[in-house]
Structures are given as C-alpha cells and as structure tokens.
C-alpha cells in the first residue's frame, strides 16, 4: 500500500513537471490564439467602429455574413476559384512529390546535388517571394520570348490540341484535360511547393526494408506490382501527413486571392466586422475540407501494427 502511494506521488510529480514544460504553450495559446479567435468570431457579428482610444462594437446579427455572400461582388467567386485551385494543386503536388521521391530514392550519380536543388525552393520561395515571383513581368517576358521562338516544336501543345479536338471542350473530359494542362503549364509552381513533401516521402521510403522487395522479386513480382503492393501501403500514412501539410500550406500562401481580399477590406476600408466574417467563412471551409478529406484518407491508410 505504501509503495503504491509513493508511485502515485511520483506520477503526480511528473504530471506537474509535464505541465510546467508545456506551460508556455498553454499561456500563449490562451492569450494569443483563443482570445483573438473568440474576439474575431464576436466581431464578425458586429459593426465595428474605430475611434480614438477604443473600439466600439455593436451587435448586428448576421449583417456581415449577408454582406459577404450577397452584396460583395468579388468574394464568393474568389472563394470558389481559390478552393478549386487548392484541390487541383494539392492533388498535383502529392502525385508529383510521390513520383519524385521514388526517383530520388534510387541510386545514381549526383543524387545529393539533385536533392539539394529540389529542396532549395523551401528556403527561397517562402514569405514575400511568392507574391513577387508571380508578377514580375520582365522575367515573364524573358520566358515568353523563349517560348515564342520555340513554338511548333512543343510536344505538349501538339498533344493538347489533339486531345482537345477528340474530347471536345465542353464535356467533363474536356474540363479534366483543361485542368491537367493548366497544371502542366504551371509545373514550376508545383515543383516549388513540393520540397518538404518529397523529403517526407523519401524518409518514409528509406524505412521499407529491402528484403521485402527481394522476396517479391524472387516470387516473380514485377517492379510495377511491387510499387503498388509494397511501397504504396508502406508509406500510405505519409500521404495523410503530406496531404494535410499541402492543403494548409496552400491556403496560407501570401498570393492567395481570398486572403488578399480580406486584408484589403481590413486595411483599406477599415471594415473589421466584414473582414472577420470573411475570414471565418474561409477558415471554416478549409477546416471542413481538411477534416473530410483526411477522414476519408485515414480509412485507406495501412498500419503494420
């Protein structure tokens, strides 16, 4: 009995120590996350007027939300295109980074160099650089001049016209082709956004023991079959991690049109109430999207133990 009591005491001591260790997070979370979050939720139901020394909030019910959805001319269409772009690009990034990880995991000369180059965008195209990159007209002109001098020899263009004419531009197939070709045209953006994902996939691939492949090879399994029967299930949990990371990363980019719109309303129109309601709409849509898709994906994830 005495021994048991002591054990409880030690456990209690460790629990207190644990709380002391995570105390900074709890304080920060309550002060700088929960409080502003609740305040912005409250603000989204209010008309906020700024005066010297204080803010006045008067309850306005659903007025801001009505404004967001029915009056503001840009917001709903921006939201639609942005969410669609998020879905398409996240899928493309996942597929791209998976196959790049498969290639970069093979043994060949100069592998370290290639890996370093692929990881470079994680450092170089973050923060302010993303917005600047996309509207630099001079660089775009340079690329255009290269493109115009090489027209007619582009394989993708020829393929695109062939597929377009056979599939027609109106049906579902036409839409899918359009989305696909948009991604191929913007492969630069996809490659830039997949640095971390590639590294995560590579780290997963290295944990698969080579003896599994060897056994499969002896049993007469082709490379293609072992890709889907061994590699894919073994790193399926990483698909979930990467998916969440990609979606979240995508909706926090600074060149996101919805975010730009919200900041414009907040800083130029000084309409804090509407800005809050818009950001809550966006936030809830993103959270719901992440929740639903990762819920579906986690059913397909395979765990060894």
């Amino acid at each position, binding site marked *: 009995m005495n021994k048991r009591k002591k054990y409880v005491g030690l456990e209690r001591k460790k629990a207190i120590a644990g709380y002391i260790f995570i105390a900074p997070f709890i304080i920060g979370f309550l002060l*700088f996350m929960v409080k502003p979050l609740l305040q912005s939720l409250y603000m989204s139901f209010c008309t906020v007027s700024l005066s010297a020394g204080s803010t006045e909030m008067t309850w306005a019910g659903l007025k801001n939300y009505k404004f967001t959805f029915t009056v503001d001319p840009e917001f709903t269409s921006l939201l639609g295109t942005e969410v669609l772009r998020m879905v398409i690009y996240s899928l493309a990034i996942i597929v791209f980074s998976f196959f790049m990880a498969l290639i970069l995991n093979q043994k060949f000369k100069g592998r370290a160099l290639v890996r370093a180059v692929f990881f470079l965008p994680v450092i170089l195209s973050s923060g302010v650089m993303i917005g600047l990159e996309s509207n630099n007209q001079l660089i775009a002109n340079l690329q255009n001049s290269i493109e115009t001098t090489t027209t007619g020899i582009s394989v993708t263009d020829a393929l695109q016209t062939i597929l377009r004419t056979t599939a027609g531009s109106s049906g579902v197939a036409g839409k899918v082709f359009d989305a696909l070709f948009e991604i191929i045209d913007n492969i630069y953006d996809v490659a830039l956004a997949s640095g971390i994902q590639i590294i995560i996939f590579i780290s997963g691939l290295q944990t698969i023991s080579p003896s599994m492949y060897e056994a499969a090879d002896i049993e007469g399994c082709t490379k293609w079959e072992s890709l889907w029967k061994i590699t894919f299930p073994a790193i399926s949990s990483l698909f979930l991690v990467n998916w969440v990371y990609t979606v979240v990363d995508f909706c926090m980019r600074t060149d996101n049109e919805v975010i730009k719109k919200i900041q414009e309303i907040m800083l130029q129109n000084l309409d804090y109430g509407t800005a809050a309601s818009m950001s809550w709409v966006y936030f809830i849509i993103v959270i719901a999207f992440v929740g639903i898709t990762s819920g579906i994906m986690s059913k397909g994830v395979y765990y060894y133990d």
Partner: protein
Amino acid sequence: MTKNKSNIVKVSFWERNRKSGGYVLKKKLMDIGVSIARFILLFGLCFLILQPIFNKISVSFMTEADLYSPVVISIPQHFTTENYKMAADVMNYSKGLVNTLVISFTIAVVQIVVCTLVGYGFARFKFPLKSFWFACVMLTILIPPQVISNSLYLHFKFFDILGIIKLIKGVPLNLNGSPVPYYLMSAGCMGLKNGLYIYMIRQFFRNIPNDMEEAAYVDGCNTVRTFFTIMLPEAKPIITSCFLFAFVWQWTDGFYSKMFLGNTTLLSTSLARLVDGLAAYLMRITGVQTSVSVAFSNCILATGVLMLIAPLIILYLFAQRQFVESISASGIKM
C-alpha cells in the same frame, strides 16, 4: 565458392548473354535507358527550379538600354553593377540587413527554446488532458494567422493586462509598430509555423529510448537536470534544423513582419515596397518627377530579390545536410 566466383568474372559479357538467352543484354539496355530517361527528367526539373535565379542574375547586370534591346536576351551588352547600388540605396540595405539578422536570430532563438521545452513536455510526460492540448497544437498549425490577424491587431493596439496599465497611465498601451508583441507571441509558441516545430521536436524525442531517462532518474537526476544533460545533447540535430528553418522563414516572412514590425527596416518588408519606393528615390536624386518604366522597376526588383536571398543561399550551401537530413531523422508519422 571463391573459385566459382572468379570463374564467372572471366566469362565475357557476350558469352554470359548467350548463355542466359539474351536476358543479360536486355537488362543492361534497360538500365541504360532508365538512367538516360531519369537524367533528362531530373535535368529538366532542376533547370526549371534554378532558371528564375539565373534569369535574375543576368537581368541584374543589365543597363536599362539592354532591357529594350532586341539583341540582348540573357547576356548583358553593357555590364553594370549600378542596379545593385540603386537597389541597396532604395532598400536601405545595410541597415535592413543588420536589423533582419538581429530580428531573425533572436526570434528564432526564442521560438526554438520554447518549442523544445514544449515538445519535450509532450513527448516525455504523462499528464491529464495531454491529448487535448496536443490537439490544440495541431489546431494552431491549421488556423491561418490571417483569421485572427485583425483582432490581434486591435489586441496590441489597445494592449492591457487585466486593466493594470490603464490604471497607471490612463490609456492602454499601443504596442503596434514595436517588436515587443512579436517577441511575446514567440515566447508563447504562436509565432510563424511554431506548431510545426513543436510537432517535429516531439516526434524526435519520442524516438529516444526510455532507458536513458530512467537510468538518469535512478542515479538521482531530477527532471530539469535530466533534460539538460541527457535529453538535450541527444536532440541536437533536430534543434539545429528547426532553428535553421525558423531563421530562414523569419528572414523571408512578409506577413508577421508587416503586421508587427512595420516601423523596423527589414529586408523582406522593404523588398515588398521596393517598386513603389523607386520612383520617389529617383525623384529625390534627379529633382524631376519621373515615372519608372515597368521593365526597369522589374529589373531593380530582381536585383533586390537576389540581394535578399544571397545570404540564405550562402547559409544553405554550408548547412544543406542539416536542412534536409533532419526531417528524415525525425521520422514523421501520424
């Protein structure tokens, strides 16, 4: 066995090919084909990633006349370093560089110290509501800072702790524009991507075997001493790499810098204002109202971007291993 092996080596390639019924040749050709295809693919993609940097380098050495010249595409006709001087003047480069260095370094130190403590707490202790708090960490990763940015802005504009400051000074403090709020937020793990660092550090600590810690406890170490002398040296690689990430991402960050550090000259924020600042700068020098052409302002912008990332590229060249290998070391799994 060894005798047998040396026999095989002596047999010529074509002999072996004939014996295997063409299989060896087929495999060899296949291997060569795969490596050629892989080389083309990887070369193309690497070129794609690096090309904008090369473009910027070539543009940054051009004079304005070169930008319009139809003959010049990537190699400048009149080589000049004037663009660098101008961009440095407009961006206030030397002051911005020092400020950015100081801010990025101190912020990264604060964030990583706190995140290490929290990550260790989550990895190594059992306490009530642990999974709830960890869910909160995941939530901070998911919430875009833009959602709370407007109320944070007001929060710091009328900053007060339970009305104490209002009692003393009469009005609440306006902390906007000073770096204090950002340091406070970093100390509370709410800075840029701090949830991610906590997650990575926790993942690393979880993989360290329990025995080491228990041995330390048995030998009479208390919790604090165990942490500093046993666990911290073990976690050096992940802490270094998280520090590097925090440093680099803070360096290029535009969102938090613009919101909290608006009055401090930072490279990232002055880069964002570079194009607007250029016209005013030219007017101040020449005394004449001039409009800057799009091509020239983009040229200066490219130069500015190069000047922003140059220190980071140097850092990456030296610390490439720490950046890449740490993520694999942490063994991220859900």
